[in-house]
Protein backbone atom coordinates (compact mmCIF):
# COMPACT_ATOMS: atom_id res chain seq x y z
CA UNK A 1 0.00 0.00 0.00
CA UNK A 2 1.38 3.31 -1.04
CA UNK A 3 -0.03 6.51 0.35
CA UNK A 4 1.81 8.59 -2.22
CA UNK A 5 0.34 6.48 -4.94
CA UNK A 6 -3.18 7.20 -3.70
CA UNK A 7 -2.53 10.91 -3.68
CA UNK A 8 -1.18 10.83 -7.18
CA UNK A 9 -4.17 8.78 -8.31
CA UNK A 10 -6.48 11.42 -6.90
CA UNK A 11 -4.38 14.07 -8.53
CA UNK A 12 -5.15 12.49 -11.87
CA UNK A 13 -8.89 12.94 -11.38
CA UNK A 14 -8.63 16.15 -9.41
CA UNK A 15 -5.58 18.16 -10.44
CA UNK A 16 -6.28 20.69 -7.72
CA UNK A 17 -6.10 18.19 -4.93
CA UNK A 18 -2.90 19.61 -3.52
CA UNK A 19 -4.26 23.12 -3.60
CA UNK A 20 -7.17 21.91 -1.54
CA UNK A 21 -4.73 20.97 1.18
CA UNK A 22 -3.02 23.87 2.90
CA UNK A 23 0.05 22.73 1.07
CA UNK A 24 1.51 19.37 0.31
CA UNK A 25 4.01 19.80 3.07
CA UNK A 26 1.27 20.63 5.56
CA UNK A 27 -0.51 17.40 4.79
CA UNK A 28 2.41 15.35 5.83
CA UNK A 29 2.91 17.46 8.87
CA UNK A 30 -0.64 16.61 9.89
CA UNK A 31 0.03 13.01 9.13
CA UNK A 32 3.16 13.05 11.24
CA UNK A 33 1.14 14.69 13.97
CA UNK A 34 -0.72 11.47 14.48
CA UNK A 35 2.59 10.17 15.69
CA UNK A 36 3.28 6.65 16.68
CA UNK A 37 -0.38 5.75 16.87
CA UNK A 38 -0.43 5.74 13.11
CA UNK A 39 -0.46 2.04 12.48
CA UNK A 40 -1.39 0.44 9.23
CA UNK A 41 -4.86 -0.24 10.56
CA UNK A 42 -5.59 3.34 11.59
CA UNK A 43 -4.05 4.97 8.55
CA UNK A 44 -7.27 4.85 6.55
CA UNK A 45 -9.03 6.83 9.26
CA UNK A 46 -6.22 9.31 9.42
CA UNK A 47 -6.39 9.69 5.69
CA UNK A 48 -10.13 10.12 5.95
CA UNK A 49 -9.56 13.02 8.28
CA UNK A 50 -7.11 14.64 5.93
CA UNK A 51 -9.36 14.31 2.93
CA UNK A 52 -12.27 15.61 4.93
CA UNK A 53 -10.21 18.62 5.72
CA UNK A 54 -9.27 19.07 2.11
CA UNK A 55 -12.60 18.41 0.47
CA UNK A 56 -15.31 18.54 3.07
CA UNK A 57 -14.68 21.25 5.54
CA UNK A 58 -13.35 24.58 4.50
CA UNK A 59 -13.84 27.37 6.98
CA UNK A 60 -17.32 28.18 5.71
CA UNK A 61 -18.78 24.67 5.67
CA UNK A 62 -21.55 24.29 8.24
CA UNK A 63 -20.70 22.66 11.56
CA UNK A 64 -22.83 19.95 13.12
CA UNK A 65 -24.51 22.64 15.24
CA UNK A 66 -25.11 24.82 12.17
CA UNK A 67 -26.87 21.95 10.43
CA UNK A 68 -28.92 21.03 13.49
CA UNK A 69 -30.00 24.61 14.04
CA UNK A 70 -30.93 24.99 10.39
CA UNK A 71 -32.96 21.79 10.64
CA UNK A 72 -34.59 23.25 13.76
CA UNK A 73 -35.57 26.37 11.81
CA UNK A 74 -37.27 24.23 9.19
CA UNK A 75 -39.06 22.24 11.88
CA UNK A 76 -40.26 25.52 13.46
CA UNK A 77 -41.62 26.48 10.05
CA UNK A 78 -43.44 23.17 9.62
CA UNK A 79 -44.71 22.88 13.18
CA UNK A 80 -46.01 26.46 13.14
CA UNK A 81 -47.82 25.70 9.90
CA UNK A 82 -49.63 22.63 11.25
CA UNK A 83 -50.33 24.33 14.57
CA UNK A 84 -51.89 27.37 12.89
CA UNK A 85 -54.00 25.16 10.67
CA UNK A 86 -55.13 22.46 13.06
CA UNK A 87 -54.89 23.43 16.74
CA UNK A 88 -53.49 26.05 19.07
CA UNK A 89 -52.31 29.57 18.24
CA UNK A 90 -49.31 28.46 16.23
CA UNK A 91 -46.86 28.58 19.11
CA UNK A 92 -44.16 25.93 18.98
CA UNK A 93 -41.45 24.68 21.23
CA UNK A 94 -43.01 24.72 24.67
CA UNK A 95 -43.47 21.02 25.28
CA UNK A 96 -46.74 19.48 24.18
CA UNK A 97 -48.52 21.42 21.46
CA UNK A 98 -51.83 23.05 22.30
CA UNK A 99 -54.97 21.09 21.52
CA UNK A 100 -57.35 24.06 21.58
CA UNK A 101 -59.26 24.21 18.30
CA UNK A 102 -60.60 27.55 17.11
CA UNK A 103 -63.72 28.10 15.03
CA UNK A 104 -61.70 28.70 11.88
CA UNK A 105 -59.59 25.62 12.53
CA UNK A 106 -62.81 23.63 12.88
CA UNK A 107 -63.90 24.89 9.47
CA UNK A 108 -60.66 23.63 7.93
CA UNK A 109 -60.68 20.33 9.85
CA UNK A 110 -64.23 19.58 8.71
CA UNK A 111 -63.14 19.65 5.10
CA UNK A 112 -61.18 16.44 5.71
CA UNK A 113 -62.45 12.94 6.29
CA UNK A 114 -61.73 11.59 9.75
CA UNK A 115 -58.92 9.40 8.41
CA UNK A 116 -57.29 12.33 6.65
CA UNK A 117 -57.76 14.66 9.60
CA UNK A 118 -56.08 12.12 11.86
CA UNK A 119 -53.27 11.76 9.36
CA UNK A 120 -52.68 15.51 9.49
CA UNK A 121 -52.73 15.47 13.28
CA UNK A 122 -50.10 12.72 13.28
CA UNK A 123 -47.91 14.86 11.05
CA UNK A 124 -48.47 17.84 13.36
CA UNK A 125 -47.44 15.72 16.34
CA UNK A 126 -44.30 14.56 14.56
CA UNK A 127 -43.23 18.08 13.61
CA UNK A 128 -43.70 19.42 17.11
CA UNK A 129 -41.78 16.43 18.43
CA UNK A 130 -39.00 17.09 15.94
CA UNK A 131 -38.68 20.63 17.31
CA UNK A 132 -38.42 19.38 20.87
CA UNK A 133 -36.03 16.61 19.89
CA UNK A 134 -33.66 18.93 18.02
CA UNK A 135 -33.72 21.52 20.79
CA UNK A 136 -32.81 18.84 23.32
CA UNK A 137 -30.17 17.30 21.06
CA UNK A 138 -28.45 20.64 20.46
CA UNK A 139 -28.49 21.48 24.15
CA UNK A 140 -27.26 18.05 25.14
CA UNK A 141 -24.32 18.34 22.76
CA UNK A 142 -23.34 21.65 24.31
CA UNK A 143 -24.88 23.96 21.73
CA UNK A 144 -27.57 26.60 21.89
CA UNK A 145 -30.80 25.92 20.03
CA UNK A 146 -32.22 28.82 18.08
CA UNK A 147 -35.27 30.22 19.83
CA UNK A 148 -38.71 29.75 18.36
CA UNK A 149 -39.61 32.75 16.20
CA UNK A 150 -42.77 34.72 16.88
CA UNK A 151 -45.68 33.27 14.92
CA UNK A 152 -46.01 36.71 13.32
CA UNK A 153 -42.70 36.10 11.51
CA UNK A 154 -44.55 33.75 9.16
CA UNK A 155 -47.09 34.37 6.42
CA UNK A 156 -48.14 31.03 5.00
CA UNK A 157 -50.15 32.70 2.23
CA UNK A 158 -46.78 33.66 0.75
CA UNK A 159 -47.83 37.31 1.00
CA UNK A 160 -44.70 38.38 2.93
CA UNK A 161 -46.87 39.75 5.74
CA UNK A 162 -50.03 40.95 4.01
CA UNK A 163 -51.68 37.55 4.51
CA UNK A 164 -53.09 37.76 1.01
CA UNK A 165 -50.41 36.05 -1.03
CA UNK A 166 -50.71 33.36 -3.67
CA UNK A 167 -51.68 30.78 -1.03
CA UNK A 168 -54.49 32.92 0.40
CA UNK A 169 -56.91 30.49 1.97
CA UNK A 170 -54.12 28.27 3.24
CA UNK A 171 -55.93 27.90 6.58
CA UNK A 172 -59.47 27.89 5.24
CA UNK A 173 -59.25 25.65 2.16
CA UNK A 174 -58.22 22.00 2.38
CA UNK A 175 -56.78 22.05 -1.13
CA UNK A 176 -54.51 25.02 -0.45
CA UNK A 177 -53.52 23.66 2.95
CA UNK A 178 -52.45 20.35 1.41
CA UNK A 179 -50.61 22.13 -1.39
CA UNK A 180 -48.52 24.13 1.07
CA UNK A 181 -48.03 21.09 3.32
CA UNK A 182 -46.68 19.01 0.44
CA UNK A 183 -44.37 21.87 -0.53
CA UNK A 184 -42.97 22.17 2.99
CA UNK A 185 -42.44 18.42 3.42
CA UNK A 186 -40.81 17.90 0.02
CA UNK A 187 -38.50 20.82 0.82
CA UNK A 188 -37.66 19.29 4.18
CA UNK A 189 -36.74 15.95 2.60
CA UNK A 190 -34.35 17.64 0.19
CA UNK A 191 -32.87 19.83 2.93
CA UNK A 192 -32.06 16.98 5.33
CA UNK A 193 -30.43 15.10 2.48
CA UNK A 194 -28.26 18.11 1.70
CA UNK A 195 -27.24 18.45 5.34
CA UNK A 196 -26.25 14.83 5.91
CA UNK A 197 -22.60 15.10 4.78
CA UNK A 198 -21.91 17.72 7.45
CA UNK A 199 -23.22 15.43 10.16
CA UNK A 200 -21.18 12.39 9.13
CA UNK A 201 -18.52 13.07 11.76
CA UNK A 202 -21.02 12.51 14.56
CA UNK A 203 -22.60 9.09 14.09
CA UNK A 204 -25.41 9.44 16.60
CA UNK A 205 -26.45 12.84 15.29
CA UNK A 206 -26.27 11.52 11.73
CA UNK A 207 -28.52 8.58 12.59
CA UNK A 208 -31.02 10.85 14.31
CA UNK A 209 -31.11 13.20 11.32
CA UNK A 210 -31.63 10.26 8.97
CA UNK A 211 -34.47 9.11 11.22
CA UNK A 212 -36.14 12.51 10.85
CA UNK A 213 -35.41 12.63 7.11
CA UNK A 214 -37.34 9.43 6.38
CA UNK A 215 -40.27 10.54 8.52
CA UNK A 216 -40.51 13.75 6.50
CA UNK A 217 -40.58 11.57 3.37
CA UNK A 218 -43.39 9.49 4.86
CA UNK A 219 -45.31 12.72 5.54
CA UNK A 220 -44.74 13.96 2.00
CA UNK A 221 -45.95 10.66 0.64
CA UNK A 222 -49.18 10.73 2.69
CA UNK A 223 -49.90 14.37 1.78
CA UNK A 224 -49.43 13.56 -1.91
CA UNK A 225 -51.71 10.56 -1.52
CA UNK A 226 -54.35 12.82 0.06
CA UNK A 227 -54.01 15.41 -2.68
CA UNK A 228 -54.49 12.67 -5.24
CA UNK A 229 -57.54 11.20 -3.53
CA UNK A 230 -59.06 14.41 -2.25
CA UNK A 231 -59.47 15.59 1.36
CA UNK A 232 -62.76 13.78 1.97
CA UNK A 233 -61.62 10.46 0.55
CA UNK A 234 -61.17 7.85 3.26
CA UNK A 235 -59.37 5.54 0.83
CA UNK A 236 -57.11 8.08 -0.79
CA UNK A 237 -54.41 5.47 -1.34
CA UNK A 238 -56.68 3.63 -3.77
CA UNK A 239 -56.79 6.58 -6.14
CA UNK A 240 -54.51 6.30 -9.15
CA UNK A 241 -52.33 9.30 -9.98
CA UNK A 242 -53.69 11.50 -12.76
CA UNK A 243 -51.92 12.96 -15.74
CA UNK A 244 -51.29 16.31 -14.05
CA UNK A 245 -48.71 15.90 -11.24
CA UNK A 246 -49.46 19.38 -9.89
CA UNK A 247 -53.03 18.45 -8.99
CA UNK A 248 -52.90 14.65 -8.79
CA UNK A 249 -49.35 13.71 -7.87
CA UNK A 250 -47.85 10.32 -7.25
CA UNK A 251 -46.73 9.69 -3.68
CA UNK A 252 -43.16 10.24 -4.87
CA UNK A 253 -41.66 12.96 -7.03
CA UNK A 254 -41.90 12.23 -10.74
CA UNK A 255 -39.63 14.34 -12.91
CA UNK A 256 -40.04 17.87 -11.58
CA UNK A 257 -43.72 17.19 -10.90
CA UNK A 258 -44.67 19.96 -13.31
CA UNK A 259 -43.27 22.46 -10.80
CA UNK A 260 -45.22 21.10 -7.83
CA UNK A 261 -48.51 22.09 -6.25
CA UNK A 262 -48.46 25.73 -7.46
CA UNK A 263 -45.82 25.79 -10.19
CA UNK A 264 -45.35 29.55 -10.33
CA UNK A 265 -44.26 29.53 -6.70
CA UNK A 266 -43.23 25.96 -5.93
CA UNK A 267 -41.05 25.11 -8.94
CA UNK A 268 -37.79 25.83 -7.04
CA UNK A 269 -38.69 23.03 -4.61
CA UNK A 270 -38.22 20.56 -7.46
CA UNK A 271 -35.49 22.42 -9.32
CA UNK A 272 -31.72 22.42 -9.10
CA UNK A 273 -29.69 23.98 -6.30
CA UNK A 274 -26.48 25.95 -6.62
CA UNK A 275 -23.69 24.13 -4.80
CA UNK A 276 -21.93 26.33 -2.23
CA UNK A 277 -18.14 26.45 -2.61
CA UNK A 278 -17.64 24.35 0.51
CA UNK A 279 -19.62 21.41 -0.95
CA UNK A 280 -17.60 18.19 -0.83
CA UNK A 281 -16.28 17.23 -4.28
CA UNK A 282 -18.66 15.09 -6.28
CA UNK A 283 -21.86 16.14 -4.47
CA UNK A 284 -24.24 18.05 -6.73
CA UNK A 285 -27.76 19.39 -6.47
CA UNK A 286 -29.58 18.54 -9.68
CA UNK A 287 -33.29 19.06 -10.22
CA UNK A 288 -35.60 16.21 -9.22
CA UNK A 289 -35.85 14.98 -12.81
CA UNK A 290 -32.19 13.94 -12.68
CA UNK A 291 -31.49 10.46 -14.06
CA UNK A 292 -27.69 10.43 -13.63
CA UNK A 293 -26.48 8.83 -10.40
CA UNK A 294 -22.83 8.39 -9.49
CA UNK A 295 -21.86 9.58 -12.94
CA UNK A 296 -23.99 6.96 -14.71
CA UNK A 297 -26.96 8.00 -16.82
CA UNK A 298 -29.32 5.27 -15.67
CA UNK A 299 -31.97 5.96 -18.28
CA UNK A 300 -29.62 5.26 -21.18
CA UNK A 301 -27.50 2.64 -19.43
CA UNK A 302 -30.56 0.67 -18.37
CA UNK A 303 -32.50 1.29 -21.57
CA UNK A 304 -32.79 -2.46 -22.16
CA UNK A 305 -35.12 -2.70 -19.15
CA UNK A 306 -37.67 -0.83 -21.25
CA UNK A 307 -39.01 1.03 -18.21
CA UNK A 308 -40.94 4.31 -18.47
CA UNK A 309 -38.58 7.29 -18.60
CA UNK A 310 -40.09 8.82 -15.45
CA UNK A 311 -39.14 5.78 -13.35
CA UNK A 312 -35.45 6.68 -13.52
CA UNK A 313 -36.01 10.05 -11.88
CA UNK A 314 -38.63 8.76 -9.44
CA UNK A 315 -36.27 6.12 -8.06
CA UNK A 316 -33.99 8.80 -6.56
CA UNK A 317 -34.79 11.95 -4.61
CA UNK A 318 -32.26 14.77 -4.79
CA UNK A 319 -30.64 16.96 -2.11
CA UNK A 320 -30.79 20.75 -1.87
CA UNK A 321 -28.10 23.01 -0.38
CA UNK A 322 -28.79 25.43 2.46
CA UNK A 323 -28.89 28.66 0.36
CA UNK A 324 -31.58 27.25 -1.95
CA UNK A 325 -33.62 25.96 0.98
CA UNK A 326 -33.40 29.40 2.61
CA UNK A 327 -34.78 31.02 -0.53
CA UNK A 328 -37.68 28.57 -0.59
CA UNK A 329 -38.37 28.92 3.14
CA UNK A 330 -38.41 32.71 2.85
CA UNK A 331 -41.54 32.34 0.72
CA UNK A 332 -43.31 31.91 4.03
CA UNK A 333 -41.66 34.58 6.17
CA UNK A 334 -42.61 38.26 6.32
CA UNK A 335 -40.66 41.05 4.68
CA UNK A 336 -37.78 42.05 6.92
CA UNK A 337 -37.69 38.73 8.77
CA UNK A 338 -34.16 37.56 9.43
CA UNK A 339 -35.20 34.17 10.73
CA UNK A 340 -33.96 32.31 7.64
Amino acid at each position, binding site marked *: MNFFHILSEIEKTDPEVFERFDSRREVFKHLTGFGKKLTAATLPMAMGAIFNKAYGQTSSAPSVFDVLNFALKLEYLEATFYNLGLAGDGTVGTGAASTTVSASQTVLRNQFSETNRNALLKIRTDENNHVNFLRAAITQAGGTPIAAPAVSQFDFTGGKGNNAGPFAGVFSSAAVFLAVAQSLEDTGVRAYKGGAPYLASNKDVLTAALNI*HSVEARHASRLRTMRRGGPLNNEASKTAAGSNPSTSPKSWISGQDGGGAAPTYTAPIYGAGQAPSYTPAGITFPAEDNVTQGGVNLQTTLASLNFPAAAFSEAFDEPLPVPTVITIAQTFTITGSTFF
Partner: protein
Amino acid sequence: MSKITQPGGDEAEFAKPLYTPIKRRSFFMYAGATAGATALLLSGCDDDDETTNDMPGMVNVGSSSLGVLNYAYALEQLEAGFYTALRDGSYYKGLGATSAEKQILDDLYYHEVIHREFFKAALGTNAIKALEPDFSKIDFSSRTSVLGTAKAFEDLGVAAYNGAGRYIATDNAGLNYLVIAGKIVSVEARHAALIRDLVSEGSFVDSDVVTIATNGLEISKSPSEVVTVANTFLKDGSKLNVSGLV
Protein backbone atom coordinates in the same frame (compact mmCIF):
# COMPACT_ATOMS: atom_id res chain seq x y z
CA MET B 1 -25.63 -0.54 -37.40
CA SER B 2 -28.75 1.16 -36.18
CA LYS B 3 -28.08 3.23 -33.10
CA ILE B 4 -31.71 3.46 -32.15
CA THR B 5 -32.11 1.96 -28.72
CA GLN B 6 -34.51 -0.86 -29.28
CA PRO B 7 -34.50 -2.99 -26.19
CA GLY B 8 -34.46 -6.66 -27.02
CA GLY B 9 -34.33 -5.99 -30.72
CA ASP B 10 -30.81 -7.17 -31.13
CA GLU B 11 -29.90 -10.29 -29.29
CA ALA B 12 -26.21 -9.54 -29.09
CA GLU B 13 -26.98 -6.08 -27.75
CA PHE B 14 -29.47 -7.51 -25.31
CA ALA B 15 -27.09 -10.10 -23.97
CA LYS B 16 -24.38 -7.54 -23.35
CA PRO B 17 -23.73 -6.60 -19.73
CA LEU B 18 -25.70 -3.55 -18.78
CA TYR B 19 -22.61 -1.68 -17.81
CA THR B 20 -19.16 -1.16 -19.12
CA PRO B 21 -16.15 -0.59 -16.94
CA ILE B 22 -15.85 2.93 -18.28
CA LYS B 23 -19.21 3.88 -16.86
CA ARG B 24 -18.32 2.32 -13.57
CA ARG B 25 -15.15 4.26 -13.44
CA SER B 26 -17.01 7.55 -13.40
CA PHE B 27 -18.86 6.46 -10.28
CA PHE B 28 -15.61 5.79 -8.54
CA MET B 29 -13.98 8.96 -9.77
CA TYR B 30 -14.01 10.29 -6.25
CA ALA B 31 -13.58 6.94 -4.64
CA GLY B 32 -9.86 6.52 -5.13
CA ALA B 33 -9.09 7.18 -1.50
CA THR B 34 -11.55 4.59 -0.27
CA ALA B 35 -10.51 1.92 -2.69
CA GLY B 36 -6.90 2.42 -1.70
CA ALA B 37 -7.68 2.61 1.97
CA THR B 38 -9.64 -0.62 1.82
CA ALA B 39 -6.78 -2.35 0.13
CA LEU B 40 -4.52 -1.09 2.87
CA LEU B 41 -6.85 -2.25 5.57
CA LEU B 42 -6.98 -5.72 4.10
CA SER B 43 -3.28 -6.05 3.57
CA GLY B 44 -2.42 -4.42 6.86
CA CYS B 45 -4.68 -6.45 9.11
CA ASP B 46 -3.02 -9.79 9.43
CA ASP B 47 -3.49 -10.05 13.17
CA ASP B 48 -4.43 -13.44 14.42
CA ASP B 49 -7.46 -12.15 16.23
CA GLU B 50 -9.08 -10.96 13.05
CA THR B 51 -12.29 -12.89 12.76
CA THR B 52 -12.90 -14.94 9.71
CA ASN B 53 -16.29 -13.63 8.82
CA ASP B 54 -17.06 -15.99 6.02
CA MET B 55 -19.25 -18.43 7.83
CA PRO B 56 -19.87 -21.36 5.53
CA GLY B 57 -22.54 -20.69 2.96
CA MET B 58 -23.13 -17.07 3.95
CA VAL B 59 -22.56 -13.97 1.88
CA ASN B 60 -20.33 -11.49 3.68
CA VAL B 61 -21.15 -7.92 2.67
CA GLY B 62 -17.80 -6.62 3.93
CA SER B 63 -17.08 -3.54 5.99
CA SER B 64 -17.04 0.26 5.87
CA SER B 65 -18.34 2.05 2.78
CA LEU B 66 -18.16 -0.94 0.47
CA GLY B 67 -19.83 -3.06 3.11
CA VAL B 68 -22.74 -0.64 3.35
CA LEU B 69 -23.05 -0.44 -0.44
CA ASN B 70 -23.13 -4.24 -0.69
CA TYR B 71 -25.59 -4.42 2.21
CA ALA B 72 -27.84 -1.99 0.34
CA TYR B 73 -27.33 -3.96 -2.87
CA ALA B 74 -28.42 -7.14 -1.06
CA LEU B 75 -31.61 -5.53 0.25
CA GLU B 76 -32.41 -4.01 -3.13
CA GLN B 77 -31.96 -7.44 -4.68
CA LEU B 78 -34.50 -8.78 -2.24
CA GLU B 79 -37.00 -5.98 -2.89
CA ALA B 80 -36.55 -6.08 -6.66
CA GLY B 81 -36.88 -9.86 -6.62
CA PHE B 82 -40.12 -9.60 -4.69
CA TYR B 83 -41.73 -7.02 -6.96
CA THR B 84 -40.60 -9.04 -9.98
CA ALA B 85 -42.04 -12.27 -8.58
CA LEU B 86 -45.40 -10.78 -7.70
CA ARG B 87 -45.97 -9.83 -11.34
CA ASP B 88 -46.42 -13.52 -12.08
CA GLY B 89 -48.89 -13.95 -9.25
CA SER B 90 -52.65 -14.02 -9.61
CA TYR B 91 -53.24 -11.06 -7.29
CA TYR B 92 -51.25 -8.69 -9.49
CA LYS B 93 -52.57 -10.21 -12.69
CA GLY B 94 -56.13 -9.70 -11.51
CA LEU B 95 -55.70 -5.94 -10.98
CA GLY B 96 -57.46 -3.65 -13.42
CA ALA B 97 -55.22 -1.98 -15.96
CA THR B 98 -55.95 1.48 -14.57
CA SER B 99 -56.21 0.57 -10.91
CA ALA B 100 -54.16 2.48 -8.39
CA GLU B 101 -52.67 -0.68 -6.96
CA LYS B 102 -51.42 -1.83 -10.34
CA GLN B 103 -49.90 1.60 -11.00
CA ILE B 104 -48.26 1.55 -7.59
CA LEU B 105 -46.91 -2.01 -7.82
CA ASP B 106 -45.59 -1.26 -11.30
CA ASP B 107 -43.76 1.84 -10.08
CA LEU B 108 -42.32 0.01 -7.09
CA TYR B 109 -41.09 -2.75 -9.40
CA TYR B 110 -39.41 -0.16 -11.66
CA HIS B 111 -37.83 1.75 -8.79
CA GLU B 112 -36.45 -1.27 -6.96
CA VAL B 113 -35.03 -2.88 -10.08
CA ILE B 114 -33.35 0.44 -10.92
CA HIS B 115 -31.91 0.59 -7.38
CA ARG B 116 -30.58 -2.94 -7.70
CA GLU B 117 -29.01 -2.31 -11.10
CA PHE B 118 -27.52 0.95 -9.87
CA PHE B 119 -25.71 -0.76 -6.99
CA LYS B 120 -24.60 -3.59 -9.22
CA ALA B 121 -23.03 -1.06 -11.56
CA ALA B 122 -21.57 1.08 -8.81
CA LEU B 123 -19.94 -1.86 -7.06
CA GLY B 124 -18.64 -3.52 -10.20
CA THR B 125 -16.17 -6.22 -9.29
CA ASN B 126 -16.65 -5.43 -5.59
CA ALA B 127 -20.27 -6.53 -5.71
CA ILE B 128 -21.55 -9.55 -3.83
CA LYS B 129 -23.13 -12.24 -5.97
CA ALA B 130 -26.69 -12.31 -7.19
CA LEU B 131 -28.70 -13.63 -4.26
CA GLU B 132 -31.27 -16.40 -4.47
CA PRO B 133 -34.48 -15.35 -2.74
CA ASP B 134 -36.89 -17.66 -0.97
CA PHE B 135 -40.41 -16.33 -1.37
CA SER B 136 -42.08 -19.65 -0.57
CA LYS B 137 -43.87 -18.16 2.43
CA ILE B 138 -45.58 -15.50 0.32
CA ASP B 139 -49.00 -16.18 -1.18
CA PHE B 140 -48.89 -14.24 -4.44
CA SER B 141 -52.61 -14.78 -4.96
CA SER B 142 -53.51 -12.92 -1.78
CA ARG B 143 -53.75 -9.15 -1.44
CA THR B 144 -53.06 -9.43 2.27
CA SER B 145 -49.91 -11.46 1.70
CA VAL B 146 -48.61 -9.39 -1.24
CA LEU B 147 -49.18 -5.98 0.35
CA GLY B 148 -48.20 -7.23 3.81
CA THR B 149 -44.87 -8.42 2.44
CA ALA B 150 -44.37 -5.20 0.47
CA LYS B 151 -44.96 -3.25 3.67
CA ALA B 152 -42.47 -5.42 5.55
CA PHE B 153 -39.80 -4.98 2.88
CA GLU B 154 -40.27 -1.23 2.49
CA ASP B 155 -40.25 -0.55 6.22
CA LEU B 156 -37.26 -2.83 6.63
CA GLY B 157 -35.45 -1.01 3.83
CA VAL B 158 -35.95 2.40 5.44
CA ALA B 159 -34.89 1.15 8.87
CA ALA B 160 -31.86 -0.53 7.29
CA TYR B 161 -30.61 2.50 5.34
CA ASN B 162 -31.07 4.75 8.36
CA GLY B 163 -29.23 2.31 10.59
CA ALA B 164 -26.35 1.79 8.17
CA GLY B 165 -25.49 5.43 7.44
CA ARG B 166 -23.13 5.46 10.42
CA TYR B 167 -20.96 2.71 8.93
CA ILE B 168 -20.14 4.66 5.78
CA ALA B 169 -16.63 6.11 5.92
CA THR B 170 -16.29 9.86 6.35
CA ASP B 171 -13.80 10.34 3.53
CA ASN B 172 -14.91 12.19 0.41
CA ALA B 173 -16.07 9.01 -1.27
CA GLY B 174 -18.04 8.12 1.84
CA LEU B 175 -19.79 11.50 1.89
CA ASN B 176 -20.82 10.92 -1.73
CA TYR B 177 -22.15 7.46 -0.83
CA LEU B 178 -24.04 8.94 2.10
CA VAL B 179 -25.85 11.34 -0.21
CA ILE B 180 -26.61 8.54 -2.67
CA ALA B 181 -28.04 6.42 0.13
CA GLY B 182 -30.09 9.43 1.21
CA LYS B 183 -31.47 9.82 -2.31
CA ILE B 184 -32.72 6.24 -2.18
CA VAL B 185 -33.95 5.97 1.39
CA SER B 186 -36.43 8.82 1.07
CA VAL B 187 -37.97 7.12 -1.95
CA GLU B 188 -38.19 3.91 0.09
CA ALA B 189 -39.90 5.89 2.85
CA ARG B 190 -42.40 7.30 0.33
CA HIS B 191 -43.07 3.73 -0.82
CA ALA B 192 -43.42 2.50 2.74
CA ALA B 193 -45.92 5.19 3.65
CA LEU B 194 -48.12 4.48 0.62
CA ILE B 195 -48.04 0.70 1.01
CA ARG B 196 -48.89 1.07 4.69
CA ASP B 197 -51.81 3.29 3.71
CA LEU B 198 -52.99 0.66 1.22
CA VAL B 199 -52.91 -1.93 3.99
CA SER B 200 -54.46 0.38 6.57
CA GLU B 201 -55.33 3.94 5.57
CA GLY B 202 -53.50 6.55 7.64
CA SER B 203 -50.94 4.17 9.17
CA PHE B 204 -47.96 5.82 7.41
CA VAL B 205 -46.14 6.81 10.64
CA ASP B 206 -47.61 4.38 13.15
CA SER B 207 -45.75 3.42 16.27
CA ASP B 208 -44.21 0.23 14.87
CA VAL B 209 -42.03 2.34 12.55
CA VAL B 210 -41.92 5.82 14.12
CA THR B 211 -41.67 6.71 17.81
CA ILE B 212 -44.63 9.01 17.34
CA ALA B 213 -45.37 9.17 21.04
CA THR B 214 -42.07 10.78 21.97
CA ASN B 215 -39.77 12.24 19.33
CA GLY B 216 -41.19 11.48 15.88
CA LEU B 217 -38.08 9.61 14.72
CA GLU B 218 -37.99 6.58 12.45
CA ILE B 219 -37.05 3.42 14.34
CA SER B 220 -33.84 2.52 12.54
CA LYS B 221 -32.41 -0.98 12.71
CA SER B 222 -28.85 -2.24 12.95
CA PRO B 223 -27.57 -4.46 10.14
CA SER B 224 -27.72 -7.52 12.40
CA GLU B 225 -31.37 -6.80 13.27
CA VAL B 226 -32.19 -6.35 9.60
CA VAL B 227 -30.57 -9.55 8.34
CA THR B 228 -32.40 -11.58 10.95
CA VAL B 229 -35.50 -10.72 8.94
CA ALA B 230 -33.93 -10.52 5.50
CA ASN B 231 -32.32 -13.94 5.80
CA THR B 232 -35.72 -15.58 6.21
CA PHE B 233 -36.35 -14.54 2.59
CA LEU B 234 -33.01 -15.84 1.30
CA LYS B 235 -32.06 -19.39 0.38
CA ASP B 236 -29.17 -21.22 2.02
CA GLY B 237 -26.01 -20.04 0.35
CA SER B 238 -27.48 -16.55 -0.11
CA LYS B 239 -28.02 -15.61 3.53
CA LEU B 240 -26.23 -12.46 4.61
CA ASN B 241 -23.39 -12.00 7.05
CA VAL B 242 -23.09 -8.38 8.18
CA SER B 243 -20.53 -8.89 10.94
CA GLY B 244 -18.19 -6.45 9.19
CA LEU B 245 -20.61 -3.55 9.71
CA VAL B 246 -19.77 -2.51 13.24
